[in-house]
């Protein structure tokens, strides 16, 4: 009997030990990012995350740094293989496709007890929701503005930045004639070029795809001659940038790296860019000291691309509670003030610098991508720019081709209205 009691006591003790060990088991959250570890935001984020780990002894944040260009395919491959991280950086263009794949955790319920939500700009939450379901958390705002090397404008005798497309082309010609440098720069390819194209389309009153009464989407340019004409004008604008010498002809094949690097080195006068260029200003203080921020030039109405950059939280993650806690930490005031002082999605983190308030002032004119699977659509947008700039294809033909391609892509993903 004594032996039995001893055995029973030992078993209970062992179970308690196992339970305690289990409770203290460290948790690792896998977090994929795409920061530049040399830039100020990357350095600040690493420091903040280290602080989070210190204040949460049981939690380790396993950060994997991947370039933006590789992040998309790596994420998709990981999702298809059932090996997704707990959370990641990403582009807003991926929201629709990740949602269609059923990869994202629905954060609506968690957000009900999220006290910080009221500090986030309301249209930011809308931009990360589909049909009322919150599917991502806000990371930073990438509002686009016209960045201008004022000294180059002065050297060309121009008193103020251009306000319209026509003024932009005329000013760029003057800058080229007076300074020998190109007046404007674009991203003709890569992830940024669709972001610029959607802005120019919005500035002329047209959108990529509109939500139809059946809840699905359709590009209507081919059904509406007025819209087709407006879209055609956008491609004609691209064409005139090359033909009138407003941009370096090589810009047709530039990605965002060339666009940002050449602007920050003062190789050309104006670019549509984001507040992250403050990092470039820190790297090239001499060449960037004359940079001023103004609204992007437009055709019919002011508009800019409003990048609501998200944190994606994945359904396959094994630690939803801890992941939610970590992601709310990163949208919290302390983290945002340290990492994104100029471009935070929080209304209580603002900056009086030109990289802060001048960009935030443009938010009301911001446009976003429609919440559909955009993988093939953005590729077709890049191709339509290439057809215009590299093949010198007729502007209307390029607009018609893009309209048909978008509807084909929507049909492929099952999102075409009536398709």
């Amino acid at each position, binding site marked *: 009997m004594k032996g039995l009691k001893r055995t029973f006591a030992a078993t209970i003790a062992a179970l308690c030990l196992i339970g305690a060990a289990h409770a203290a088991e460290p948790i690792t959250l896998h977090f994929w990012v795409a920061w530049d570890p040399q830039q100020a935001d990357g350095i600040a984020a690493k420091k903040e995350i280290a602080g989070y780990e210190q204040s949460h002894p049981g939690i380790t944040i396993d950060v994997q740094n991947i370039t933006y260009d590789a992040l998309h395919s790596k994420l998709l491959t990981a999702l298809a293989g059932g090996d997704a991280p707990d959370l990641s950086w990403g582009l807003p263009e991926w929201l629709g496709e990740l949602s269609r794949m059923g990869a994202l955790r629905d954060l609506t319920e968690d957000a009900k007890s999220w006290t910080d939500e009221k500090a986030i700009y309301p249209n930011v939450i809308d931009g990360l929701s589909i049909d009322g379901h919150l599917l991502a958390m806000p990371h930073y705002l990438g509002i686009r503005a016209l960045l201008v090397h004022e000294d180059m404008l002065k050297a060309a005798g121009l008193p103020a930045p251009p306000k319209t497309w026509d003024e932009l082309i005329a000013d760029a010609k003057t800058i080229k004639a007076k300074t020998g440098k190109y007046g404007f720069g674009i991203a003709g390819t890569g992830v940024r070029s669709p972001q610029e194209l959607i802005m120019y389309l919005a500035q002329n009153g047209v959108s990529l795809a509109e939500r139809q009464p059946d809840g699905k989407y359709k590009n209507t340019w081919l059904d509406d001659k007025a819209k087709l004409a407006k879209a055609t004008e956008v491609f004609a604008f691209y064409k005139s940038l090359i033909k009138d010498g407003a941009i370096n002809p090589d810009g047709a094949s530039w990605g965002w790296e060339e666009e940002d690097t050449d602007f920050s080195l003062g190789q050309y006068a104006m670019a549509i860019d984001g507040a992250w260029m403050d990092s470039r200003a820190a790297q090239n203080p001499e060449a960037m000291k004359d940079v001023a921020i103004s609204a992007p030039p437009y055709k019919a109405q002011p508009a800019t691309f409003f990048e609501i950059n998200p944190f994606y939280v994945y359904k396959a993650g094994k630690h939803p509670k801890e992941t939610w806690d970590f992601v709310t930490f990163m949208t919290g005031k302390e983290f945002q003030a340290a990492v994104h002082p100029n471009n935070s999605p929080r209304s209580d983190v603002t900056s009086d610098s030109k990289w802060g308030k001048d960009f935030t002032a443009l938010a009301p004119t911001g446009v976003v991508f429609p919440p559909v699977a955009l993988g093939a659509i953005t590729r077709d947008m890049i191709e339509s720019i290439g057809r215009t700039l590299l093949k010198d294809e007729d502007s209307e033909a390029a607009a018609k081709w893009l309209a048909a391609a978008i509807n084909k892509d929507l049909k492929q993903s*099952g999102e075409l209205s009536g398709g």
Partner: protein
Amino acid sequence: MVAGRRRGHTSRQAQLRRLAAYCVTPAAVVILLLIAYPLASVLWEAVHNVILTNPAVSGFAGFDNFVTVFTDERFWPAFWRTGLWTAVSVAGEYALGLGSAVALAQPSRARGVSRAIVLIPWVIPIVVAGLTWTWMLTPDYGIVNLWLVNVGLLSKPFYWLGNLNTALLTVSVVNIWRSFPFYTICLLAALMAIPKELIESAAMDGADSIRRFIYITLPGVKTVSLTLIFIHVIATAINFDFIWVMTQGGPLNSSETLPILIYRFALEDFDVGAASALATMTMGFMLAVFFVYWYATRNPYEETR
């Protein structure tokens, strides 16, 4: 007695067969897991609807995915580009490899060092080589353009990887640069195996160096050459990384080959079925190349024996 010996012999043979089976099993399992399963998976998905962003569409698709591939406006241009990329790359690699092998086979004091130096491009990882060449070729700060302008071959820097007509050829040249050392090593080994007496007696008979090269050297390296060309035709046609690192198939699809198109179907269109159909077709084409090679190099004596 004889029957007992035969029984012992048979049981020893059975033991050896069992041992062989045990030894082969781990390799067979690995092959099944790493080759057969993915291969079967691709074949299965090629005839099924697998669209990641459209879970509503699923099930058996028959030849629909193949129709999707054939009717895609990018397919035929990518097909011809794959042929061009493969032909230019393999021809260039072979010509440069043979030339350098012949040069390195000549007696010289610096032969050992030269043989080591010529290997350098081959040991550089493709991604490193691709990125380095991309930087060297940029119009703004690339050293290649600087040199070409300085020596007067160009009046101003040229965007080699950003032009529709030069992007694929430029990547091909870089691919040749990186791959030719492998040809050099193999062909050099074959050259060294040609008996010196044969070349000397041909010279004594009055054959000049060109005739000796055509009638002795080339036949001497024929088998190695065919094997090299066959391996590299397949490796180049299915190469993804070099083109992706340097141009991502651009600009405007001008360097898009079939492997890049497979990637686009899978990871941009999310149509895994179409990607698998194209991968299956590519695999069929490569098998056809293999059979042509096998037929061309088979030994009729071996078959009839």
